[in-house]
């Protein structure tokens, strides 16, 4: 090798390194510039101002705890006790939580020395350790109190409303009513509502103890009361999950059944007419490009909200996707097998059945099963738009902006549902095709 050669090689290597170095710096720079642009385009700096951290705190604490409302209606003087303040969670007449006592003067012990007293004449006393006794009088539409002008940040006061937030619970006082919220960990009434005779009864007693409700056997009664629980609506939730899975199942399988014959038309091997082939392919591209969102919108106009609309939206979109992948799989089949079958005198249909289908079935099935799992997720999302399944229940629960324990429950169920479908599709794949390794 001459010196010139070496120099040229060196030059070439240097250039290559220079180029590589440039790329190595250019790509991160481009990404950084893009992210900077996004930072301003999405107004990330303004996000902190728009974000409502109080909401985040409520969400985080409510999702794993529940509160019991003790409410005094200042007009009638009536006092009600209800879980989450909902009618469905009201304590039966004559019953109340054991941290409430007294008849004329209702004493609510929030714990750790925090005591609220509902006095006659719509007066209220709040006792908080390390803070002077707070006295509040509700009159008509206003509230007056002995609170000083400078307040700690856990008390907010105006002539209309006073709010006190303590680690033990919250108190709000308005002219119309006085409310105390006492927080407890756990999902209350998950098993039985307060009107069920099985509420507060241990599992052992239900299974082996004496008959609680004389008209029903313990297990049947308990299952019935749990299934028809008005707070948590286990029956509706189970139905909603079934609906979501049904949407995914019907959509995926229907799409596969429609796409398979059409894929033959789109594959060069089996469809000699170019016009027909092109038309089928454009059809696949079209239904895929329109996207599930627009199909959902269009179909909801025709069929109304519900699981059928969602299933059809998935079906139409996936017909395009399946059509494309199926026809690609069909183009790649081995000609030898088809020749072998046709050498036995098989007719065209038999050639397809015994020469082509066995070759493409593994590809097709694994594709279909993969989509079954991914469509379960899509069905949740489409359900939220078109009104069906667990997606709708989730959006409804979020829109109430207070049933965060239900939201948390639904999220856990959705994750479990998707993981179950993932496992199921993997199991079916292993059963039908055999594992890859």
């Amino acid at each position, binding site marked *: 090798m001459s010196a010139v050669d070496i120099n040229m090689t060196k030059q070439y290597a240097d250039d290559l390194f220079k180029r590589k170095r440039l790329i190595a710096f250019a790509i991160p720079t481009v990404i950084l510039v*893009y*992210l900077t642009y*996004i930072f301003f*385009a*999405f*107004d*990330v700096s303004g*996000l902190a101002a*728009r*974000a*409502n951290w109080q*909401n*985040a705190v409520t*969400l985080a604490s409510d999702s794993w705890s529940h509160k019991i409302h003790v409410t005094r209606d200042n007009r009638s003087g009536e006092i009600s006790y209800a879980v989450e303040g909902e009618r469905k969670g009201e304590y039966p007449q004559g019953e109340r939580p054991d941290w409430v006592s007294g008849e004329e003067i209702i004493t609510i012990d929030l714990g750790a020395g925090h005591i609220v007293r509902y006095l006659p004449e719509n007066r209220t006393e709040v006792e908080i350790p390390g803070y002077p006794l707070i006295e509040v009088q509700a009159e008509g539409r206003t509230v007056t109190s002995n609170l000083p002008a400078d307040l700690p940040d856990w008390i907010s006061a105006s002539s209309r409303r006073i709010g006190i937030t303590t680690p033990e619970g919250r108190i709000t006082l308005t002219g119309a009513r006085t409310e105390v919220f006492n927080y407890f960990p756990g999902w209350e009434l998950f098993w039985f509502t307060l009107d069920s005779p099985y509420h507060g009864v241990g599992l052992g007693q239900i299974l082996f103890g004496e008959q609680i409700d004389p008209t029903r056997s313990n297990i049947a009664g308990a299952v019935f009361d749990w299934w028809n629980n008005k707070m948590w609506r286990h029956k509706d939730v189970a139905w909603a999950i079934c*609906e979501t899975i*049904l949407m995914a199942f*019907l959509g995926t*399988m*229907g799409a596969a059944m429609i796409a398979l014959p059409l894929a033959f038309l789109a594959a060069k091997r089996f469809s000699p007419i170019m016009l027909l082939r092109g038309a089928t392919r454009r059809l696949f*591209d079209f239904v*895929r*490009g*329109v*996207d*599930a*969102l*627009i199909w959902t*919108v*269009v*179909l909801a*106009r*025709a*069929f*109304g*909200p*519900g*699981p*059928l*609309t969602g*299933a059809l939206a998935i079906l139409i979109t996936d017909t395009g996707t399946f059509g494309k992948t199926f026809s690609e799989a069909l183009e790649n089949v081995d000609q030898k097998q088809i020749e072998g079958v046709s050498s036995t005198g098989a007719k065209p249909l038999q050639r397809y059945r015994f020469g082509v289908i066995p070759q493409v079935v593994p590809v097709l099935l694994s594709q279909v099963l993969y989509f079954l799992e991914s469509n379960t*997720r*899509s069905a*949740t*999302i489409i359900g*939220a*738009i078109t*009104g*069906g399944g667990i*997606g709708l229940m*989730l*959006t409804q629960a*979020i829109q109430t*902006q207070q049933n965060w324990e239900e*939201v948390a429950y639904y*999220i856990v169920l*959705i*994750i479990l549902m*998707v*993981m179950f479908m*993932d496992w199921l599709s993997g199991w079916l794949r292993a059963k039908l095709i055999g594992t890859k390794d």
Partner: protein
Amino acid sequence: MSDATMTGPAQSVETIQSSYLAQVQRRRLYSGLALLVFVVLMASGFHIADDRNAGGFWDGLHQIGDYPADVLSEAWEKRTELPGLIGKYYPALIETINIAAVATLIGAVGGLFLSLLGTRGLAKWPRLIPLFRRISDVMRAVPEIVIALVLIFVLGGGPVPAMIAIAIHTAGALAKMFSEVAENADLKSVEGLASTGATWSQRMLLGVLPQVAPNYLSYTLLRFEINIRASAILGFVGAGGLGYELRNAMAWGPGRFDEAAAIFILLFGTIVFFDQVSSRYRNRLTEGQGQ
């Protein structure tokens, strides 16, 4: 074989034939049963779905064309305004694409780390492999809408909640695909690097990434395509972009169908465009591997 030599060829052929036929029959029975179960499931599933739907399937079937026809005829009447409307919604389109792009970018980085930390032979802490796998399983299982809705409550509407939601799902989904690729990576270069005293990040960067980069990029492009659709859908529940405009345009109803049509056209065009571009690049990436 010993059977065949003892009883003579004729009988052995017969036994083979009859046992083969019995096997075929059993197979047919099983596949027939499976088919029957499948048909029953489909039929009853369709029936239930039809029952629980607000409008019936057969009543609605002939109405499918009504809404598109309304939209299209109105858009055709006002076709002169269409270019203007497309211009009006162009920023929303850019936002939708931006949401998808940033989410894909962040998700791909997250997926990269999750996949490397969750692959046998590559993980920095081999004992934590199951943990990282479970994390990516859960991230993959969460539908975007769940995170988006919760974040909208906290952060307010806009592109950021959608971006975070899609990024989380993307990280989980890509982690699975990435780690399938990484499992097949050749470990010799990693060992070689380790022998020179390279740190974990150097081993990954110089030993593993060059091997897996084409596949990773191709999966990321595929994900980008999917994420554009997802970002449009999330807009529909209040996360900004084209989906949000579409919901508003639809809420106005007749008289504003030209706006809905403009958005439909933009969305369709974008999806088809990125579909074509990404599939072209993906083909190039995976074909280039063989050479």
